[in-house]
Protein backbone atom coordinates (compact mmCIF):
# COMPACT_ATOMS: atom_id res chain seq x y z
CA UNK A 1 0.00 0.00 0.00
CA UNK A 2 1.40 3.40 -0.97
CA UNK A 3 1.94 6.05 1.68
CA UNK A 4 -0.60 8.38 0.07
CA UNK A 5 -3.30 5.69 -0.04
CA UNK A 6 -2.65 4.87 3.59
CA UNK A 7 -2.89 8.55 4.49
CA UNK A 8 -6.17 8.85 2.62
CA UNK A 9 -7.66 5.73 4.19
CA UNK A 10 -6.62 6.91 7.65
CA UNK A 11 -8.19 10.32 7.00
CA UNK A 12 -11.40 8.59 5.92
CA UNK A 13 -11.37 6.31 9.00
CA UNK A 14 -10.97 9.38 11.15
CA UNK A 15 -14.10 10.86 9.55
CA UNK A 16 -16.29 7.87 10.37
CA UNK A 17 -18.05 8.96 13.54
CA UNK A 18 -21.41 8.03 15.09
CA UNK A 19 -23.53 10.11 12.67
CA UNK A 20 -21.72 8.64 9.64
CA UNK A 21 -22.09 5.09 10.97
CA UNK A 22 -25.79 5.63 11.65
CA UNK A 23 -26.30 7.19 8.22
CA UNK A 24 -24.74 4.22 6.43
CA UNK A 25 -26.72 1.83 8.61
CA UNK A 26 -29.95 3.69 7.91
CA UNK A 27 -29.66 3.97 4.12
CA UNK A 28 -32.46 1.95 2.56
CA UNK A 29 -31.11 2.32 -1.01
CA UNK A 30 -34.31 4.06 -2.09
CA UNK A 31 -32.56 6.27 -4.65
CA UNK A 32 -34.51 9.41 -3.78
CA UNK A 33 -31.19 11.24 -3.37
CA UNK A 34 -30.54 10.64 -7.08
CA UNK A 35 -33.79 12.39 -7.99
CA UNK A 36 -32.65 15.39 -5.95
CA UNK A 37 -29.20 15.59 -7.57
CA UNK A 38 -28.64 18.13 -10.32
CA UNK A 39 -25.97 15.97 -11.96
CA UNK A 40 -28.06 12.80 -12.01
CA UNK A 41 -31.13 14.71 -13.18
CA UNK A 42 -29.40 16.37 -16.12
CA UNK A 43 -27.34 13.35 -17.26
CA UNK A 44 -29.49 10.39 -16.24
CA UNK A 45 -26.28 8.57 -15.30
CA UNK A 46 -26.79 6.51 -12.11
CA UNK A 47 -23.13 6.90 -11.11
CA UNK A 48 -24.11 10.41 -9.97
CA UNK A 49 -26.44 9.02 -7.28
CA UNK A 50 -25.28 10.95 -4.19
CA UNK A 51 -24.96 7.99 -1.84
CA UNK A 52 -22.89 6.16 -4.48
CA UNK A 53 -20.38 9.03 -4.45
CA UNK A 54 -19.57 7.85 -0.90
CA UNK A 55 -18.96 4.19 -1.81
CA UNK A 56 -15.25 4.08 -0.80
CA UNK A 57 -16.08 5.53 2.62
CA UNK A 58 -19.04 3.16 2.96
CA UNK A 59 -16.79 0.21 2.19
CA UNK A 60 -14.30 1.20 4.89
CA UNK A 61 -17.15 1.54 7.34
CA UNK A 62 -18.58 -1.82 6.33
CA UNK A 63 -15.23 -3.68 6.40
CA UNK A 64 -13.88 -2.19 9.60
CA UNK A 65 -16.73 -0.83 11.69
CA UNK A 66 -19.46 -3.48 11.42
CA UNK A 67 -19.40 -6.90 13.02
CA UNK A 68 -20.32 -8.74 9.85
CA UNK A 69 -17.84 -6.73 7.81
CA UNK A 70 -15.03 -7.45 10.24
CA UNK A 71 -15.82 -11.15 10.20
CA UNK A 72 -15.81 -11.11 6.40
CA UNK A 73 -12.52 -9.21 6.34
CA UNK A 74 -10.96 -11.87 8.58
CA UNK A 75 -11.92 -14.47 6.01
CA UNK A 76 -10.37 -12.38 3.26
CA UNK A 77 -13.77 -11.28 1.97
CA UNK A 78 -15.10 -7.74 1.55
CA UNK A 79 -13.75 -5.46 -1.15
CA UNK A 80 -10.88 -3.29 -0.03
CA UNK A 81 -10.55 0.31 -1.17
CA UNK A 82 -7.69 0.65 -3.66
CA UNK A 83 -5.69 3.53 -5.05
CA UNK A 84 -7.61 3.12 -8.31
CA UNK A 85 -10.94 3.45 -6.46
CA UNK A 86 -9.95 6.81 -5.02
CA UNK A 87 -8.71 8.01 -8.42
CA UNK A 88 -11.99 6.88 -10.01
CA UNK A 89 -14.03 8.64 -7.34
CA UNK A 90 -12.36 12.04 -7.79
CA UNK A 91 -14.85 12.99 -10.51
CA UNK A 92 -17.79 11.87 -8.37
CA UNK A 93 -16.66 13.59 -5.20
CA UNK A 94 -15.38 16.87 -6.69
CA UNK A 95 -16.64 17.41 -10.26
CA UNK A 96 -20.19 16.22 -9.87
CA UNK A 97 -21.08 17.43 -6.40
CA UNK A 98 -21.50 21.09 -5.52
CA UNK A 99 -22.44 20.18 -1.94
CA UNK A 100 -25.73 21.91 -2.71
CA UNK A 101 -27.55 19.96 -0.01
CA UNK A 102 -30.65 18.88 -1.94
CA UNK A 103 -29.97 15.18 -1.33
CA UNK A 104 -29.72 15.77 2.41
CA UNK A 105 -33.04 17.58 2.43
CA UNK A 106 -34.99 14.83 0.66
CA UNK A 107 -33.43 11.75 2.30
CA UNK A 108 -36.37 9.93 3.94
CA UNK A 109 -34.21 8.53 6.75
CA UNK A 110 -32.52 11.87 7.39
CA UNK A 111 -29.01 11.08 6.18
CA UNK A 112 -26.85 14.18 5.83
CA UNK A 113 -25.25 13.06 2.58
CA UNK A 114 -23.78 16.51 1.90
CA UNK A 115 -21.92 16.45 5.20
CA UNK A 116 -20.59 13.00 4.32
CA UNK A 117 -19.29 14.30 0.96
CA UNK A 118 -17.53 17.05 2.90
CA UNK A 119 -15.98 14.32 5.08
CA UNK A 120 -15.14 12.12 2.09
CA UNK A 121 -13.18 15.01 0.62
CA UNK A 122 -10.97 14.99 3.75
CA UNK A 123 -9.76 11.53 2.73
CA UNK A 124 -9.49 12.42 -0.95
CA UNK A 125 -7.33 15.47 -0.32
CA UNK A 126 -5.16 13.53 2.14
CA UNK A 127 -4.51 10.81 -0.44
CA UNK A 128 -3.62 13.34 -3.13
CA UNK A 129 -6.85 12.90 -5.10
CA UNK A 130 -8.08 16.50 -4.98
CA UNK A 131 -8.36 18.51 -8.24
CA UNK A 132 -5.18 20.42 -9.11
CA UNK A 133 -7.02 23.76 -9.32
CA UNK A 134 -8.19 23.45 -5.72
CA UNK A 135 -4.71 22.39 -4.61
CA UNK A 136 -3.21 25.45 -6.34
CA UNK A 137 -5.95 27.69 -4.90
CA UNK A 138 -5.28 26.34 -1.41
CA UNK A 139 -1.58 27.04 -1.80
CA UNK A 140 -2.23 30.65 -2.89
CA UNK A 141 -4.73 31.11 -0.07
CA UNK A 142 -2.24 29.81 2.48
CA UNK A 143 0.72 31.83 1.24
CA UNK A 144 -0.86 34.97 -0.15
CA UNK A 145 -4.15 35.36 1.67
CA UNK A 146 -6.69 34.43 -1.00
CA UNK A 147 -7.26 31.77 -3.67
CA UNK A 148 -6.59 34.51 -6.22
CA UNK A 149 -3.30 35.58 -4.67
CA UNK A 150 -2.53 38.74 -2.72
CA UNK A 151 -5.57 41.00 -3.09
CA UNK A 152 -4.64 43.67 -0.54
CA UNK A 153 -3.32 46.12 -3.19
CA UNK A 154 -6.56 45.70 -5.16
CA UNK A 155 -8.72 46.22 -2.07
CA UNK A 156 -6.70 49.28 -1.08
CA UNK A 157 -7.13 50.75 -4.57
CA UNK A 158 -10.88 50.07 -4.53
CA UNK A 159 -11.23 51.68 -1.09
CA UNK A 160 -9.46 54.78 -2.34
CA UNK A 161 -11.68 54.93 -5.43
CA UNK A 162 -14.86 54.50 -3.40
CA UNK A 163 -13.84 57.24 -0.98
CA UNK A 164 -13.22 59.52 -3.93
CA UNK A 165 -16.48 58.78 -5.72
CA UNK A 166 -18.76 58.81 -2.64
CA UNK A 167 -17.02 61.12 -0.19
CA UNK A 168 -17.59 58.45 2.45
CA UNK A 169 -14.67 57.45 4.64
CA UNK A 170 -13.99 53.71 4.44
CA UNK A 171 -12.22 52.42 7.54
CA UNK A 172 -9.42 49.90 7.45
CA UNK A 173 -8.23 48.32 10.73
CA UNK A 174 -10.38 50.63 12.85
CA UNK A 175 -10.97 49.30 16.36
CA UNK A 176 -14.24 49.35 18.25
CA UNK A 177 -16.65 49.75 15.34
CA UNK A 178 -19.79 47.61 15.11
CA UNK A 179 -18.85 45.37 12.23
CA UNK A 180 -15.90 43.85 10.44
CA UNK A 181 -16.76 43.43 6.76
CA UNK A 182 -15.22 40.55 4.87
CA UNK A 183 -15.51 39.98 1.12
CA UNK A 184 -14.96 37.14 -1.29
CA UNK A 185 -11.95 37.15 -3.61
CA UNK A 186 -14.40 37.15 -6.50
CA UNK A 187 -15.79 40.47 -5.26
CA UNK A 188 -12.43 42.13 -4.73
CA UNK A 189 -11.13 40.95 -8.10
CA UNK A 190 -14.27 41.11 -10.24
CA UNK A 191 -17.49 42.39 -8.69
CA UNK A 192 -15.96 45.26 -6.74
CA UNK A 193 -19.11 47.39 -7.26
CA UNK A 194 -20.33 45.81 -4.03
CA UNK A 195 -17.81 47.82 -2.00
CA UNK A 196 -19.29 51.15 -3.00
CA UNK A 197 -22.83 49.79 -2.61
CA UNK A 198 -22.12 48.58 0.91
CA UNK A 199 -20.33 51.77 1.91
CA UNK A 200 -23.30 53.87 0.82
CA UNK A 201 -25.96 51.66 2.45
CA UNK A 202 -24.14 51.32 5.77
CA UNK A 203 -23.26 55.01 5.87
CA UNK A 204 -26.91 55.95 5.31
CA UNK A 205 -28.04 53.47 7.98
CA UNK A 206 -25.53 54.79 10.50
CA UNK A 207 -23.73 51.46 10.87
CA UNK A 208 -20.05 51.72 11.77
CA UNK A 209 -17.76 49.20 10.12
CA UNK A 210 -14.23 48.50 9.01
CA UNK A 211 -12.19 46.29 6.73
CA UNK A 212 -9.18 44.49 8.19
CA UNK A 213 -5.97 44.50 6.18
CA UNK A 214 -5.20 41.14 7.79
CA UNK A 215 -8.53 39.44 7.12
CA UNK A 216 -10.79 40.63 4.35
CA UNK A 217 -11.05 37.32 2.56
CA UNK A 218 -14.15 35.25 3.24
CA UNK A 219 -13.64 32.34 0.87
CA UNK A 220 -12.24 29.16 2.33
CA UNK A 221 -10.52 26.65 0.04
CA UNK A 222 -10.22 24.31 3.03
CA UNK A 223 -13.98 23.73 2.96
CA UNK A 224 -13.99 23.07 -0.79
CA UNK A 225 -10.98 20.79 -0.99
CA UNK A 226 -11.85 19.01 2.23
CA UNK A 227 -9.12 19.88 4.69
CA UNK A 228 -10.18 20.80 8.18
CA UNK A 229 -6.66 22.01 8.99
CA UNK A 230 -6.73 24.51 6.13
CA UNK A 231 -10.33 25.45 6.84
CA UNK A 232 -9.46 26.10 10.49
CA UNK A 233 -6.51 28.31 9.56
CA UNK A 234 -8.59 30.42 7.16
CA UNK A 235 -11.47 30.84 9.61
CA UNK A 236 -8.98 31.67 12.38
CA UNK A 237 -7.62 34.57 10.35
CA UNK A 238 -11.06 36.20 10.37
CA UNK A 239 -11.75 35.31 14.01
CA UNK A 240 -8.39 36.71 15.16
CA UNK A 241 -8.91 39.96 13.26
CA UNK A 242 -12.44 40.37 14.61
CA UNK A 243 -11.23 39.83 18.16
CA UNK A 244 -8.33 42.21 17.71
CA UNK A 245 -10.63 44.92 16.38
CA UNK A 246 -13.18 44.20 19.12
CA UNK A 247 -16.15 44.32 16.76
CA UNK A 248 -19.65 43.22 17.73
CA UNK A 249 -20.17 41.36 14.52
CA UNK A 250 -18.66 40.11 11.28
CA UNK A 251 -20.57 40.66 8.05
CA UNK A 252 -20.26 37.62 5.82
CA UNK A 253 -20.21 38.53 2.14
CA UNK A 254 -22.28 37.57 -0.89
CA UNK A 255 -20.42 34.26 -1.15
CA UNK A 256 -21.99 30.88 -0.49
CA UNK A 257 -19.27 28.82 1.08
CA UNK A 258 -17.81 31.80 2.96
CA UNK A 259 -21.03 31.86 4.96
CA UNK A 260 -20.94 28.09 5.40
CA UNK A 261 -17.32 28.34 6.59
CA UNK A 262 -17.62 31.23 9.02
CA UNK A 263 -21.20 30.92 10.24
CA UNK A 264 -21.72 27.18 10.44
CA UNK A 265 -18.44 25.23 10.35
CA UNK A 266 -16.25 27.87 11.97
CA UNK A 267 -16.94 27.39 15.69
CA UNK A 268 -16.56 23.61 15.29
CA UNK A 269 -13.32 24.09 13.38
CA UNK A 270 -11.73 26.27 16.05
CA UNK A 271 -13.38 24.42 18.93
CA UNK A 272 -15.10 27.36 20.62
CA UNK A 273 -17.86 29.89 20.21
CA UNK A 274 -17.13 33.36 18.84
CA UNK A 275 -17.29 36.47 21.03
CA UNK A 276 -19.02 38.21 18.12
CA UNK A 277 -22.02 37.61 15.90
CA UNK A 278 -21.78 36.46 12.28
CA UNK A 279 -24.41 37.96 10.03
CA UNK A 280 -24.82 37.53 6.30
CA UNK A 281 -24.86 40.85 4.49
CA UNK A 282 -28.38 40.25 3.14
CA UNK A 283 -29.58 39.27 6.60
CA UNK A 284 -28.18 42.57 7.89
CA UNK A 285 -29.78 44.60 5.10
CA UNK A 286 -33.12 42.98 5.93
CA UNK A 287 -32.70 43.88 9.60
CA UNK A 288 -31.91 47.47 8.62
CA UNK A 289 -35.05 47.43 6.47
CA UNK A 290 -37.15 46.23 9.40
CA UNK A 291 -35.67 48.94 11.63
CA UNK A 292 -36.45 51.61 9.06
CA UNK A 293 -32.75 52.31 8.55
CA UNK A 294 -32.64 51.10 4.97
CA UNK A 295 -34.88 53.40 2.98
CA UNK A 296 -35.30 53.17 -0.75
CA UNK A 297 -36.96 55.28 -3.37
CA UNK A 298 -38.41 54.20 -6.69
CA UNK A 299 -38.98 50.81 -8.23
CA UNK A 300 -37.22 48.69 -10.81
CA UNK A 301 -39.90 47.86 -13.38
CA UNK A 302 -37.83 45.31 -15.26
CA UNK A 303 -38.85 41.69 -14.94
CA UNK A 304 -36.51 40.31 -12.29
CA UNK A 305 -35.98 36.87 -10.92
CA UNK A 306 -33.84 35.60 -8.06
CA UNK A 307 -31.28 32.80 -7.90
CA UNK A 308 -30.89 31.27 -4.42
CA UNK A 309 -27.30 30.31 -3.57
CA UNK A 310 -27.47 26.82 -2.02
CA UNK A 311 -25.09 27.56 0.84
CA UNK A 312 -26.93 30.70 1.86
CA UNK A 313 -30.51 29.57 1.48
CA UNK A 314 -30.88 25.78 1.69
CA UNK A 315 -27.82 25.21 3.86
CA UNK A 316 -27.68 28.65 5.41
CA UNK A 317 -31.28 29.45 6.32
CA UNK A 318 -31.60 32.81 4.56
CA UNK A 319 -34.73 32.51 2.47
CA UNK A 320 -37.25 35.30 3.13
CA UNK A 321 -34.72 38.11 3.63
CA UNK A 322 -33.71 38.58 -0.02
CA UNK A 323 -37.35 38.42 -1.11
CA UNK A 324 -38.46 41.12 1.33
CA UNK A 325 -35.63 43.31 0.02
CA UNK A 326 -36.43 42.60 -3.63
CA UNK A 327 -40.09 43.44 -3.13
CA UNK A 328 -39.00 46.79 -1.74
CA UNK A 329 -37.37 47.85 -4.98
CA UNK A 330 -38.86 45.71 -7.76
CA UNK A 331 -42.50 45.60 -8.82
CA UNK A 332 -42.10 42.88 -11.42
CA UNK A 333 -40.24 40.27 -9.38
CA UNK A 334 -41.13 36.78 -10.61
CA UNK A 335 -39.88 33.57 -9.02
CA UNK A 336 -38.59 30.61 -11.00
CA UNK A 337 -39.95 27.15 -10.41
CA UNK A 338 -38.56 25.50 -7.23
CA UNK A 339 -37.33 28.90 -5.97
CA UNK A 340 -36.36 29.14 -2.33
CA UNK A 341 -35.24 26.23 -0.18
CA UNK A 342 -35.43 23.65 -3.00
CA UNK A 343 -33.77 25.86 -5.62
CA UNK A 344 -31.37 24.19 -8.06
CA UNK A 345 -27.64 24.94 -7.90
CA UNK A 346 -25.93 27.12 -10.53
CA UNK A 347 -23.62 24.13 -11.00
CA UNK A 348 -20.42 25.81 -9.85
CA UNK A 349 -20.51 25.56 -6.06
CA UNK A 350 -18.34 23.35 -3.86
CA UNK A 351 -15.26 24.06 -5.97
CA UNK A 352 -16.83 22.57 -9.13
CA UNK A 353 -16.61 25.88 -10.99
CA UNK A 354 -12.84 26.01 -10.61
CA UNK A 355 -12.19 22.45 -11.82
CA UNK A 356 -11.46 22.58 -15.50
CA UNK A 357 -12.25 18.87 -15.86
CA UNK A 358 -15.80 19.62 -14.68
CA UNK A 359 -16.62 22.39 -17.17
CA UNK A 360 -18.54 20.30 -19.68
CA UNK A 361 -20.55 18.47 -17.04
CA UNK A 362 -21.29 21.72 -15.19
CA UNK A 363 -22.63 23.35 -18.35
CA UNK A 364 -24.77 20.30 -19.02
CA UNK A 365 -26.09 20.51 -15.47
CA UNK A 366 -26.88 24.19 -15.99
CA UNK A 367 -29.64 23.20 -18.40
CA UNK A 368 -31.96 22.85 -15.42
CA UNK A 369 -31.52 26.54 -14.54
CA UNK A 370 -31.60 27.42 -18.21
CA UNK A 371 -35.08 25.93 -18.62
CA UNK A 372 -36.27 27.65 -15.46
CA UNK A 373 -34.97 31.03 -16.61
CA UNK A 374 -36.47 30.54 -20.06
CA UNK A 375 -39.86 29.90 -18.48
CA UNK A 376 -39.70 33.22 -16.61
CA UNK A 377 -37.83 35.13 -19.35
CA UNK A 378 -36.42 37.76 -16.98
CA UNK A 379 -34.49 40.85 -17.99
CA UNK A 380 -32.30 40.45 -14.95
CA UNK A 381 -31.31 37.71 -12.51
CA UNK A 382 -30.47 38.87 -9.01
CA UNK A 383 -28.47 36.72 -6.61
CA UNK A 384 -26.54 37.00 -3.32
CA UNK A 385 -23.36 35.04 -4.03
CA UNK A 386 -20.53 36.42 -6.18
CA UNK A 387 -19.56 32.95 -7.33
CA UNK A 388 -23.12 32.06 -8.39
CA UNK A 389 -23.03 35.45 -10.16
CA UNK A 390 -19.86 34.45 -12.01
CA UNK A 391 -21.12 30.95 -12.93
CA UNK A 392 -24.51 32.30 -14.04
CA UNK A 393 -22.84 34.86 -16.31
CA UNK A 394 -20.51 32.28 -17.79
CA UNK A 395 -23.24 29.70 -18.35
CA UNK A 396 -25.74 32.21 -19.78
CA UNK A 397 -23.10 33.34 -22.21
CA UNK A 398 -22.35 29.76 -23.18
CA UNK A 399 -26.02 29.27 -24.08
CA UNK A 400 -26.27 32.67 -25.83
CA UNK A 401 -28.74 33.99 -23.28
CA UNK A 402 -28.50 37.73 -22.96
CA UNK A 403 -29.66 38.28 -19.38
CA UNK A 404 -28.00 40.64 -16.91
CA UNK A 405 -26.93 39.27 -13.52
CA UNK A 406 -26.63 41.51 -10.46
CA UNK A 407 -25.81 41.16 -6.79
CA UNK A 408 -28.64 42.09 -4.41
CA UNK A 409 -26.56 44.52 -2.33
CA UNK A 410 -25.70 46.44 -5.48
CA UNK A 411 -29.35 46.51 -6.58
CA UNK A 412 -30.47 47.84 -3.18
CA UNK A 413 -27.84 50.60 -3.32
CA UNK A 414 -29.19 51.71 -6.69
CA UNK A 415 -32.54 52.52 -5.09
CA UNK A 416 -31.17 53.98 -1.88
CA UNK A 417 -33.15 57.04 -0.84
CA UNK A 418 -31.41 60.26 -1.90
CA UNK A 419 -29.10 58.20 -4.07
Amino acid sequence: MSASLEKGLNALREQIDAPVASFFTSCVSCGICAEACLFYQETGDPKYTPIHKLEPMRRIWSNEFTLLGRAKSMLGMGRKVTEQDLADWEELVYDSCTMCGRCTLVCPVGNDITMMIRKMREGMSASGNAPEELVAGAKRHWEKGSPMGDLLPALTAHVKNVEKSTGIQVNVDKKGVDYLVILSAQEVAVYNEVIEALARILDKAGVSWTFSSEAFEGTNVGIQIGSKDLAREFVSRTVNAAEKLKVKGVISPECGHAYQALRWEGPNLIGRTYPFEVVHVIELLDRLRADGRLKTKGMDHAKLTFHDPCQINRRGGINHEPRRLLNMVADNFTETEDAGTMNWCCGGGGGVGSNESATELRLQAFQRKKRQFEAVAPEKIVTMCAYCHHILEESLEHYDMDIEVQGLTELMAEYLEDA
Partner: protein
Amino acid sequence: MAYQVNGQTVEHDEEGYITNLGDWSKELAEVIAEAEEIEMDDERWEVVNFLREYYDEYQIAPAVRVLIKALKKSMGPEKGNNKYMYELFPYGPAKQACKIAGLPKPTGCV
Protein backbone atom coordinates in the same frame (compact mmCIF):
# COMPACT_ATOMS: atom_id res chain seq x y z
CA MET B 1 13.14 28.33 -20.89
CA ALA B 2 13.61 31.85 -22.13
CA TYR B 3 12.74 34.45 -24.75
CA GLN B 4 15.48 36.21 -26.67
CA VAL B 5 15.06 39.93 -27.12
CA ASN B 6 17.71 42.45 -28.23
CA GLY B 7 20.42 39.98 -27.33
CA GLN B 8 18.99 39.59 -23.81
CA THR B 9 17.60 36.44 -22.29
CA VAL B 10 14.24 36.72 -20.49
CA GLU B 11 13.20 33.67 -18.51
CA HIS B 12 9.68 32.31 -18.59
CA ASP B 13 7.82 29.44 -16.95
CA GLU B 14 6.69 26.28 -18.70
CA GLU B 15 3.57 28.00 -20.02
CA GLY B 16 5.41 31.03 -21.36
CA TYR B 17 4.64 33.60 -18.63
CA ILE B 18 7.74 35.64 -17.84
CA THR B 19 9.26 34.92 -14.46
CA ASN B 20 10.35 38.44 -13.56
CA LEU B 21 7.63 40.98 -14.34
CA GLY B 22 10.20 43.78 -14.45
CA ASP B 23 11.77 42.20 -17.57
CA TRP B 24 8.85 43.29 -19.75
CA SER B 25 9.31 45.67 -22.65
CA LYS B 26 7.37 46.44 -25.83
CA GLU B 27 9.96 44.54 -27.82
CA LEU B 28 9.51 41.54 -25.54
CA ALA B 29 5.73 41.71 -26.05
CA GLU B 30 6.30 41.38 -29.79
CA VAL B 31 8.56 38.37 -29.20
CA ILE B 32 6.01 36.66 -26.92
CA ALA B 33 3.24 37.42 -29.44
CA GLU B 34 5.29 35.86 -32.19
CA ALA B 35 5.77 32.72 -30.11
CA GLU B 36 1.98 32.68 -29.68
CA GLU B 37 1.55 33.13 -33.43
CA ILE B 38 -0.14 36.47 -32.98
CA GLU B 39 0.64 39.65 -34.85
CA MET B 40 0.43 42.75 -32.68
CA ASP B 41 -1.74 45.53 -34.14
CA ASP B 42 -3.32 48.67 -32.65
CA GLU B 43 -6.27 46.82 -31.18
CA ARG B 44 -4.17 44.12 -29.57
CA TRP B 45 -1.90 46.82 -28.18
CA GLU B 46 -4.92 48.58 -26.72
CA VAL B 47 -5.85 45.40 -24.84
CA VAL B 48 -2.27 44.80 -23.69
CA ASN B 49 -1.89 48.42 -22.57
CA PHE B 50 -5.15 48.23 -20.63
CA LEU B 51 -3.97 45.06 -18.90
CA ARG B 52 -0.72 46.70 -17.87
CA GLU B 53 -2.41 49.85 -16.58
CA TYR B 54 -4.91 47.77 -14.63
CA TYR B 55 -2.16 45.64 -13.15
CA ASP B 56 -0.24 48.74 -12.21
CA GLU B 57 -3.19 50.00 -10.13
CA TYR B 58 -4.59 46.76 -8.66
CA GLN B 59 -1.63 44.32 -8.76
CA ILE B 60 -3.87 41.66 -10.27
CA ALA B 61 -4.82 40.86 -13.85
CA PRO B 62 -8.37 42.01 -14.59
CA ALA B 63 -11.08 39.40 -14.98
CA VAL B 64 -12.38 39.01 -18.53
CA ARG B 65 -15.61 40.73 -17.45
CA VAL B 66 -13.71 43.78 -16.19
CA LEU B 67 -11.60 43.86 -19.35
CA ILE B 68 -14.60 43.66 -21.70
CA LYS B 69 -16.46 46.34 -19.74
CA ALA B 70 -13.54 48.73 -20.07
CA LEU B 71 -12.96 47.95 -23.75
CA LYS B 72 -16.65 48.37 -24.51
CA LYS B 73 -16.18 51.97 -23.38
CA SER B 74 -12.99 52.61 -25.33
CA MET B 75 -13.57 50.49 -28.46
CA GLY B 76 -17.37 50.51 -28.61
CA PRO B 77 -19.73 47.51 -28.33
CA GLU B 78 -18.77 46.24 -31.81
CA LYS B 79 -15.30 45.34 -30.65
CA GLY B 80 -15.59 45.45 -26.88
CA ASN B 81 -17.17 42.03 -26.59
CA ASN B 82 -16.11 38.53 -25.73
CA LYS B 83 -16.31 37.16 -29.26
CA TYR B 84 -14.10 39.84 -30.74
CA MET B 85 -11.58 39.41 -27.93
CA TYR B 86 -11.30 35.74 -28.80
CA GLU B 87 -10.67 36.73 -32.40
CA LEU B 88 -7.80 38.89 -31.22
CA PHE B 89 -6.52 36.33 -28.74
CA PRO B 90 -7.71 32.84 -29.73
CA TYR B 91 -6.47 31.25 -26.50
CA GLY B 92 -8.44 33.70 -24.41
CA PRO B 93 -8.13 37.40 -23.71
CA ALA B 94 -7.24 36.65 -20.11
CA LYS B 95 -4.57 33.99 -20.49
CA GLN B 96 -2.97 34.85 -23.80
CA ALA B 97 -3.14 38.63 -23.57
CA CYS B 98 -1.79 38.56 -20.01
CA LYS B 99 1.14 36.49 -21.20
CA ILE B 100 1.97 39.07 -23.88
CA ALA B 101 1.46 41.90 -21.37
CA GLY B 102 4.02 40.27 -19.08
CA LEU B 103 1.55 39.65 -16.27
CA PRO B 104 1.22 36.52 -14.15
CA LYS B 105 -1.21 33.83 -15.28
CA PRO B 106 -4.72 34.86 -14.18
CA THR B 107 -6.17 32.84 -11.31
CA GLY B 108 -9.76 32.03 -10.54
CA CYS B 109 -11.84 32.00 -7.40
CA VAL B 110 -13.24 28.81 -5.93
